[in-house]
C-alpha cells in the first residue's frame, strides 16, 4: 500500500522527522481558512511521480491566487489520476538537497539504507552518487552515521542527517514498511534539515496488523485479490487464459507469444474458491452468450494443474458452453479419464502443456 505524501508526512511528524507546517486541503475554499502564512506551496496528492513537471505543484502568494491554483490542480490529472486532496505547505529555501531511503534487499534478506548527497529531481546524478549500508544485525545508530559519512557529510550536518535516517528506520520497523523515502531532504542556510517530500510503501501482507493505517487502506475484497497478469504487448487478443498460479500464467503467456498468438486477458485464480472462479469468469466477459458473440474472444485456455482441487465437477459448472467459444482445458492424464465423457463438445481436453498451447493457437488463427 503506497501512502500519499501528506499521509507519509503525518507518520514522519509522529516519529520526529522534521517536516514543514502544512494543511490538508479537501476543496479550494478550504484555503480561506489557511493557518500557514504565505507564501505557500500547493501540492497535488497523487500516488504517481513527476508531479512537479506535470504542473501539480504551484507556489502562491495570497488567498485569491491560491484558490485559483487549487482549482487548477484539482482538475489536473497526473498520469490519469485526479487528486482527492491537496497539501498546502510552507515554502522552504534550500541550499542543499539529499536523497534518503530504506528498502529491503530481497537477496540479502536485510534492510538497506540508501543515501545520495545529490537529491531532488536530477535522478541520474543522484543514482551515480548513491551510497548503501546493509543493516546486517539489530539496527543501531552507527549504521545511520556510517551512511551519512559515506554520503560525504561532516560535523553537525552529518549528525542531523543520521538522526533522520535512524527515525526512518524506526518508522520502517514499527509500521512494516517496504520502502521509506525522503527526496529531497532540504538543508537551509542555517544547516536546518527538513523532509520536503516523502514516500512510504506499507507491506501489503503486514498492513492488517497496523490499526493506525486502516483509515488509509484501500478496501481489499476478493475482487482486488484476484490477480490479473497482462501480456507485455497490449494488442487486442482473441485468447484468454484462466490458470491456478503466477508461474504457470507467465509460462502460458510466453508460449502463446512465442507461437504468434495474442492474449486478451490472463487471470490467476484459486480454483477451490467458488467466489474467485465466478469473478474470474465475469472479468473474462464470458458469463453470457451475447457478450461472447460481441467480443473478439475465440479461445479460453484453462490450466489448473497442481492446484488443490479434487472437484473437477465443480469447475465444469463454471465453464460455459457457447458455440463460438472453444475451451482448451489442460488436464493431467488421470483426470482425462474421469472427465472425458462428461464434457460438452466445446471443451477440448489436452494432457500436455505444449499440445494445449498449439491447439489453442490453431483455433485462434482459424
Amino acid at each position: 500500500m503506497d501512502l500519499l505524501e501528506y499521509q507519509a508526512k503525518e507518520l514522519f511528524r509522529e516519529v520526529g522527522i522534521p517536516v514543514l507546517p502544512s494543511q490538508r486541503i479537501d476543496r479550494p475554499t478550504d484555503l480561506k481558512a489557511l493557518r500557514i502564512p504565505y507564501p505557500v506551496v500547493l501540492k497535488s496528492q497523487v500516488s504517481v511521480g513527476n508531479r512537479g513537471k506535470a504542473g501539480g505543484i504551484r507556489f502562491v502568494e495570497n488567498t485569491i491566487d491560491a484558490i485559483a491554483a487549487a482549482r487548477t490542480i484539482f482538475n489536473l490529472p497526473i498520469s490519469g489520476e485526479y487528486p482527492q486532496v491537496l497539501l498546502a505547505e510552507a515554502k522552504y529555501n534550500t541550499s542543499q538537497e539529499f536523497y534518503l531511503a530504506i528498502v529491503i534487499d530481497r537477496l540479502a534478506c536485510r534492510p538497506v539504507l540508501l543515501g545520495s548527497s545529490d537529491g531532488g529531481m536530477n535522478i541520474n546524478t543522484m543514482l551515480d552518487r548513491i551510497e548503501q549500508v546493509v543493516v546486517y544485525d539489530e539496527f543501531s545508530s552507527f549504521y545511520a552515521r556510517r551512511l551519512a559519512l559515506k554520503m560525504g557529510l561532516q560535523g553537525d550536518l552529518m549528525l542531523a542527517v543520521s538522526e533522520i535516517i535512524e527515525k526512518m528506520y524506526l518508522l520502517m520497523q514499527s509500521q512494516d514498511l517496504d520502502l521509506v523515502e525522503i527526496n529531497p531532504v532540504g538543508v537551509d542556510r542555517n544547516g536546518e534539515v527538513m523532509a520536503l517530500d516523502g514516500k512510504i510503501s506499507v507491506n501489503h501482507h503486514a498492513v492488517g496488523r497496523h490499526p493506525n493505517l486502516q483509515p488509509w487502506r484501500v478496501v481489499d475484497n476478493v475482487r482486488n485479490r484476484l490477480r490479473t497478469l497482462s501480456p507485455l504487448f497490449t494488442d487486442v487478443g482473441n485468447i484468454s487464459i484462466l490458470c491456478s498460479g503466477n508461474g504457470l500464467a507467465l509460462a502460458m503467456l510466453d508460449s502463446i507469444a512465442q507461437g504468434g498468438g495474442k492474449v486478451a486477458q490472463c487471470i490467476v485464480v484459486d480454483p477451490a474458491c467458488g467466489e474467485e472462479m465466478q469473478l474470474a469468469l465475469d472479468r473474462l466477459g464470458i458469463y453470457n452468450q451475447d457478450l461472447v458473440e460481441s467480443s473478439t474472444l475465440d479461445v479460453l485456455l484453462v490450466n489448473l494443474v497442481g492446484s488443490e482441487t479434487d472437484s473437477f465437477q465443480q469447475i465444469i459448472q463454471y465453464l460455459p458452453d457457447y458455440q463460438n467459444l472453444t475451451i482448451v482445458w489442460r488436464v493431467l492424464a488421470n483426470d482425462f479419464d474421469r472427465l472425458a465423457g462428461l464434457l460438452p463438445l466445446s471443451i477440448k481436453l489436452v494432457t500436455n502443456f505444449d499440445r494445449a498451447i498449439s491447439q489453442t493457437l490453431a483455433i485462434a488463427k482459424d
Partner: protein
Amino acid sequence: MPINLQPDSRVLIHGIDNPLALAAISRMQIYGTNIVGIIIAGKGGQQLGDLPVFDLVEQAQAALGPIDTSLIFVPAYEVLDAALEAIAANIPQLVIVTRGVPPLDTIRLLRQARITDTLILGSGSAGIIIPDRLLLGIYQPQLFRPGKVAIISRNQSLTAEIASELNQANFGQSIVIHIGSDPLVGSSCRLWLEWLQSDPLTAAIVLVGDICWDSEAATAAYLLAQKGKPVVAYLAGIHASTPHPLTDAAIVLSHTLSKPIHHADTIQQRIETYQRAKISVAKKIGQIPHLLKKLGSKA
C-alpha cells in the same frame, strides 16, 4: 548445516489454520510421513485423528522425544512466533507453508536461524517431496514419479506442469524442493544446489522460475554441471508483465525514482546470468527433457 530428509524422520505440525493443512496432513500420513504430533495453542491434551495435540512445542518434545522437522501452518502474523518457538526447542528444520509473512518478521527469523544454524524452507513453501520416500508439505504426490531429476522451484503450479512434462519423457524426480513463494525466503536455491552435489539420488537438476539468478547461485549451478550433474533452467515471463515483480534493492529504488525497470528486463538479465554460468535455458517447457538428454544426463 545438516539436512535430514530420511523417510522415517519425525515431523511436527504447527497450526492447522491454513485451509490446506488438514488435507495435507492426511495426504502425508497416507504417504507414510512420520507425523508425531500437532501444536494448537489452547487445544493441548486433545487428539486430532490419531495424533496428540500440544499447547507448546517443548511439551510435544518432552512427550514425544526429539523432532526433526516442524511444518508450520499458522496464520502469517504468527509465523515468526511459531518458528522462534521451534528454534527454542532445538528443532533443526522448519518448513513454513504459510504465505504472506511480513518481510521484517522474516528478517528477524533468519537472523536467529543463522545463529542456531536452523534450516528454514519458505515462507510460502509447498515443501519437499522425494517420490515414494518422503512427503513434507502440501504437494500432491500423484504429480510426481521416482527418478533422478531434482527440481528446485518457487512456483507450485509451474512445478506440477514441469513434473508432468518430465514424467511423459520418462524422467522421474529424485527430489522436488519448493523454496517458497514469498519475496524473502530462508534456504536459498544456492544452498540446495550445493546439497544436491552429494545427493546420491540426483543425476540432473531443473531450476524452475524466478530463482537462482544471483551470480553466487549461478556459480553453484555451474559447479554442479562441471561435476557431471547437468542443470537446465526454465524461466517464465519474458512476454508478460506482472503487477508486483520480485525485486531487489536496486530495482525497488529504480521504481521509486519513476524509472521503472520492466519485469521482462529483469527476466532477461536473469537468463543472461544463467548463460554466463553456462547453464542451459529451456525456451519452452517441452524443451526441458530434450535438453536433459542432450546434456547426456544419466537420469
